[in-house]
């Protein structure tokens, strides 16, 4: 397993009508293999940009990212991405979606089939292989996306607001699944979320990011993910420790928001 290292990464978007946006400024961190990092922050603080750089879709304007010492220059199978929604191939059925990676890599059909069956089982979709994507609910689709990503055995899984579109209850189930996968496979996971609770609950490590310029404002090491699977998640979320942490984060972010969004007109 490889460690991820982000060194002085900056990203400046030039705007079409002139001017530029500093989406990320001098972001540095190291993430050891097997950690679950959650990224939390207001809109526009560069979460997606950072994920895209790590995924290799964007090259930073400054700095570098390495995985196990090798610089990242483009997309690669060792870094899988799970998008918020809409990234499944709706012209393929569930099994074909999951088998996409192995197929692109010309893996044996029989081998792939077993792999797919195993993954569908893992994400609780046994028997759904021949369903069409559009026949699934949002939560089920997210599970397919996760399975598809896992099929290539990536070292790092990047998730950009994967649960944003789900309702509260499905979301809670998916959180459980992510924790379980993380525990069982030991993969490195970076997960972007807008939900403070989710960031706390899932994150083994948490960065609160701030915008203008996009940066890591605060980093936390968190205990909840470790115990999230074994103890009752709802009890955990109702624990005093959890709630304290949450309030701390909320206050901080609320302050950040005020400062940023103040110009939009306060709500007295």
């Amino acid at each position, binding site marked *: 397993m490889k460690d991820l290292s982000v060194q002085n990464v900056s990203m400046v978007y030039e705007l079409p009508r002139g001017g530029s946006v500093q989406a990320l400024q001098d972001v540095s961190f190291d993430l050891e293999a097997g950690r679950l990092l959650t990224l939390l922050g207001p809109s526009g603080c560069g979460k997606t940009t950072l994920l895209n750089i790590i995924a290799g*879709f964007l090259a930073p304007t400054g700095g570098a990212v390495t995985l196990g010492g090798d610089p990242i220059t*483009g*997309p690669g199978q060792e870094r899988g991405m799970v998008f918020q929604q809409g990234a499944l*191939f709706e*012209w393929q059925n569930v099994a074909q979606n999951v088998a*996409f*990676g192995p197929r*692109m890599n010309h893996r044996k059909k029989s081998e792939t089939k077993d792999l797919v069956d195993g993954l569908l089982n893992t994400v609780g979709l046994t028997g759904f292989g021949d369903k069409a994507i*559009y026949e699934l609910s949002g939560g089920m689709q997210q599970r397919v996306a996760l399975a598809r990503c896992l099929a*290539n055995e990536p070292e790092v899984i990047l998730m950009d607001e994967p649960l944003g579109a789900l309702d509260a209850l499905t979301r809670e189930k998916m959180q459980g699944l992510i924790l379980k996968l993380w525990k069982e496979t030991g993969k490195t996971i970076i997960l972007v979320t807008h939900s403070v609770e989710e960031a706390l609950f899932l994150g083994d490590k948490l960065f609160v990011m701030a915008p203008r310029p996009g940066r890591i404002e605060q980093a936390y090491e968190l205990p909840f993910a470790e115990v999230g699977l074994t103890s009752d998640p709802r009890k955990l979320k109702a624990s005093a420790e959890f709630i304290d942490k949450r309030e701390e984060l909320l206050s901080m972010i609320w302050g950040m928001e005020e400062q940023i969004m103040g110009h939009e007109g306060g709500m007295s």
Partner: protein
Amino acid sequence: MSDHIPAPAAETAATFGRFDRRRGNQSRKTVTFGDASEVTTSKVWMVFSLGGLMLIWWLVTRGPEPMIAEKTFPGQRAVWDAFTRWLREGYRRGSAWEHTWASLSRVLKGLLIGTVIGIPVGFAMGLSRRLRGIFDPIVELFRPIPPLALLPLFIMWFGIGEQSKVNLLVWASVWVMIIAARAGVLGVGGSKVHAAYSLGANRWQILRYVILPNALPEVFTGVRVALGVSWGTLVAAELLGTEVGLGATIYIASRFFRMDIVVVNILVIGVIGVAMDIVMRVLEARLIPWRGKG
């Protein structure tokens, strides 16, 4: 991508009774004006409409002193007679079937070639700045050129055989297909392409397994539009030297002022156009079941 025009009668699926999605709950909407889901085709009114057309036709052509002179626009009786005779005897050198097949096969060939050329070009324009730079001026400059203006050039270059006619129909359809294919590529969600790259696909695989299927709906719509345009260009194409074909028949018959035959052939083209559109819609529903559900 926000620049789309609708496929012809994209929503008329219900017209032909195959996909009628309304039932039951229609009576429960209190608001229907402005609610697209309420606006399917009323079959009853469709029948009224066709009936009304027939009635108007009958009214303006009836009697010994019709409102529209017989030789300008023949009555139903005359057209029906001409039709049955056309079915039995054909026209000039061809049977009804030969005329129909000649035109149909030209249109289909033209469309096929237009599609086979248009898709890669449109894809290229959607995928590469360079190729887009190369093709853009060509497409924009050539697109408005009237097919009729090309007749002498086409005869000179391609002769008066089938190739010439098919080429004119290719001309008619290829621009539509290029534009449709390009739009199809541009409509590919960035995240799908990114996902595929992350899953280890190479460019060729991206093209084959992501871009192509994603563009299919737009390509299909392009084919339907191109079909309409091709039928509309048929007379011009068959001016390029033939006496067999629906368009040629229209031209020749009009030279002899045989308006009954002209009208029969116009109607045959209309009906074939409708029929092919239905076929395309059925195919579409089969081949792109995910359309509109992504």
